């Protein structure tokens, strides 16, 4: 096929995917924005300004604290020998498998009215508890981003700086900080949006402090506050806009997809003892102690439980969620591969547009997406061809399965797309051109050049998508009834009743399953990629 024909085919392939995205995401978002403006015009949202101010302050505090602690932990880890560093990575990384509501429940189990240390700790309900839980829940993101970003730091550079008399603070400022600027900026922005749009920690710990995301959650489940919910959804999306503007003006995928540097640990950094290094170590010990206390308290709560930790309803919920997550992966993976393939071949401008749209979808707060979808498809939708039945909630088409699948697929497609695009970019253009001149066909190029380089990344992304779908809270909780067979909805229902022990048990089972499913998906993807690569 000629190059022009390939380009046309690629563009044609993007059309149905784009149309689907427009119907399933674009239209709900536009409709939601319209409702938000109408609500703003009628000024029917009393007290929302105060709630927005409180939420913004809370998210800023959490972002700063999580970033500082992430830096301290990452610096300490990088100065450790490889084995203890891996242990460090495992402990902090494992927190990614713990949903935010479970962290909040652990905070209550430690310092709540009936908590193990209630007598010696101040009241955890309200801002203090929310800050603590959000920092712990978001810490691994900052930590892992910094750890990955520091892989490019050459220890010889640090050594050279020290030989020239630089102190630890100067090494940090001149050598270690520069590679962090872009990734840390983006990560801080994402953490801010993530904390702002999380309804689950406030659901457990808010006390009498209202937050934007939890208010939207109540508006949605109480039915009737559609104007307020849509206005909040728009407010939650606003912080993403400057980030999107930066990305549009500087379309480097590495800002979001950290460069893949293959396997192997980075060499240990030897930093001289200094107040900075010692402070980082002290903070790291404190954080690890806190995580340990939270985990041990959760464990003892389960051990002392007077109720059955695992119920038949819980088993049904877990099986159902696993099913949804895997089906969503089966839908999202080919769609992401398709859009990445088409973007590469449809020309530079189309590729830039497609990448940007995928990034927009990825960065859009899941709470905003959930509210938009709830408002658009919560009830039947009139169309020129008749009424489309309601897609949200237990009483809708397929008992709400359509909405839940869309909720899982929508954020997963951009992840796969960006992973494949990053994989494509890892294959040097000159190498591809040379292979082409030497007579390699497209199939051979893909199988023998692109796949072996991108395979590990694609496998890791597939595993991450499966894990994310099982653990994620939003947008699922906006699209399911309290006793819908979804882990997040079920857990929030348990926590509404202060059933902490069962929540910990549910989280433990899910963590084991996510690890197993993630490993299986990664192994399966790697096996497929490896087999193809050897053809």
């Amino acid at each position, binding site marked *: 096929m000629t190059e022009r024909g390939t380009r046309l*085919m690629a563009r044609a392939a993007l059309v149905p995917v784009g149309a689907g995205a427009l119907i399933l995401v674009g239209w709900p978002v536009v409709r939601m924005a319209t409702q938000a403006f109408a609500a703003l015009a009628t000024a029917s949202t009393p*007290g929302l300004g105060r709630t927005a101010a409180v939420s913004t302050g809370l998210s800023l505090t959490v972002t700063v604290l999580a970033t500082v602690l992430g830096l301290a932990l990452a610096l300490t880890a990088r100065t450790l020998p490889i084995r203890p560093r891996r242990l460090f990575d495992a402990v902090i990384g494992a927190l990614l498998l713990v949903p935010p509501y479970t962290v909040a429940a652990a905070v209550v189990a430690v310092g709540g009215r009936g908590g193990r240390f209630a007598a010696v700790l101040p009241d955890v309900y309200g801002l203090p508890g929310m800050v603590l839980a959000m920092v712990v829940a978001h810490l691994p993101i900052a930590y892992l981003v910094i750890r990955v970003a520091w892989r490019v730091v050459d220890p010889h550079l640090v050594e050279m700086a020290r030989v020239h008399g630089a102190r630890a603070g100067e090494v940090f400022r001149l050598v270690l900080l520069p590679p962090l600027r872009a990734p840390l900026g983006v990560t801080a922005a994402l953490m801010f949006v993530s904390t702002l749009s999380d309804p689950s920690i406030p659901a457990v710990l808010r006390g009498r402090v*209202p937050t934007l995301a939890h*208010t939207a959650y109540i508006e949605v*489940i109480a039915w009737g506050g559609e104007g307020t919910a849509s206005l909040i959804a728009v407010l939650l999306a606003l912080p993403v806009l400057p980030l999107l503007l930066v990305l549009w003006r500087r379309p480097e995928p590495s800002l979001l997809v950290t460069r893949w540097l293959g396997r192997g640990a980075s060499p240990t950094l030897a930093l001289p003892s200094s107040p900075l290094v010692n402070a980082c170590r002290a903070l790291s010990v404190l954080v690890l102690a806190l995580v340990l206390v939270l985990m041990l308290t959760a464990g003892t709560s389960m051990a002392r439980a007077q109720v059955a930790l695992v119920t038949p309803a819980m088993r049904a919920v877990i099986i159902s969620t696993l099913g949804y997550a895997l*089906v969503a992966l089966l839908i999202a993976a080919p769609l992401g591969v398709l859009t990445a393939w088409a973007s590469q071949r449809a020309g530079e401008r189309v590729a830039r547009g497609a990448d940007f749209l995928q990034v927009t979808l990825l960065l859009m707060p899941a709470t905003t997406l959930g509210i938009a979808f709830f408002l658009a498809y919560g009830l039947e939708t009139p169309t020129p061809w008749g009424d489309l039945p309601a897609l949200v909630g237990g*009483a809708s088409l397929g008992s709400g399965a359509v909405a839940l699948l869309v909720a899982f697929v929508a954020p997963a497609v951009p992840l796969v797309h960006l992973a494949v695009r990053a994989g494509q970019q890892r294959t040097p253009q000159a190498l591809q051109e040379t292979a082409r001149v030497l007579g390699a066909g497209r199939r051979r190029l893909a199988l023998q050049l692109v796949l072996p380089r991108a395979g590990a990344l694609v496998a890791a992304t597939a595993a991450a998508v499966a894990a994310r779908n099982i653990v994620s809270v939003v947008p699922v909780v906006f699209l399911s009834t309290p006793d819908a067979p979804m882990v997040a909805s079920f857990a929030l229902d348990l926590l*509404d009743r202060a059933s902490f022990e069962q929540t910990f048990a549910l989280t433990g089972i899910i963590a084991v399953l996510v690890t197993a499913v993630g490993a299986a998906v990664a192994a399966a993807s790697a096996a497929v990629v490896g087999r193809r690569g050897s053809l």
Partner: protein
Amino acid sequence: MTPSLRSPCALTALVVLALLVVTGCTAADGPAERDEVAVLCSNDAEICRAWAAAFTERSGRDVTLVRLPTSEALERIRRGEGLPEFDIWHGGGAEMYVEAAEEGLLAPYTSPETAAIPDEFRDPEGSWSGVYSSMLAFCVSPPGLAALDAQTPRTWDDLLDPALTGQVSTASPRTSGTAFTAMSLQIDRLGDEAGRDYLAALYGQVLQFTRSGTAPVQVVVHDEAAVALTFAPYCEAARAEGHDVETVVPHDGTDYEIGAVAVLADAPHARGAREYIDFALSAEGQRSGADSGIHQIATRSDVPGNLAEILADGRYPVIGSPLAERVERRDELLGWFTAEVER
């Protein structure tokens, strides 16, 4: 030519296939089976399941059960007019049923069993009937109160004891019929202005509002609060499970809910729906919820310990207003709660 995964056609086909598999798997859950009854249930999950199981055992008909909170259920029924999904709405306060009946969303049906339900607990047109009731009460934790050095609250004013600040658990009246009953009672007890002043003070004592009306008892059981505002059967059920809690009906006035059942307009399985109503109104139906461990009060006059008997013997100081009045004040009170308390 061998189809390749790189081909957009193959990928699109794969996606379509996956979608077909998914929708094919899930569409069978719909209420189109001939011997089924589709029930929208607005009560505790265990009670809903107990009702469904007892009906299936009696009639042989399968029950498609979807549980939705009362307010969401009404909204779903309201907006689903013309595309009926359910046959029956079972559970939830009668206030919502009054609204639904006024809007023509319910199909009147006078069951032979209706004769046993006193007039004041059912709609005169037969649109809905009360099938259970519960009395509003405090569920207190004696050890929790002892730790706070607080007395057991016996009146509503006792709840304003400074020692109980942050120790009262109640649901949000926006999501819970239980909490709205407690809210409306204060207006009946004290009048509009003084009632709102009292509510503002009471809500100042609340730790945080739960979503479900049955949750506050569990909050107390887990020692996160010392007093819960709830319907008495949920506290009694916790006590029967061995938890150290006590039910206290306030001396200065309480109220009760009437949980209702109704056939929905344009019910897809009309015959099955009428059978279900016959069952729900029967003595067997009214007792079947107790299989869940939660013992609610029957509305049938031939069941011992029924609601009319309890109201007549004066053991509870009931002072609630008529249903129609409660329905009328609902939107305004909830608007006040959202603006003045919640945010």
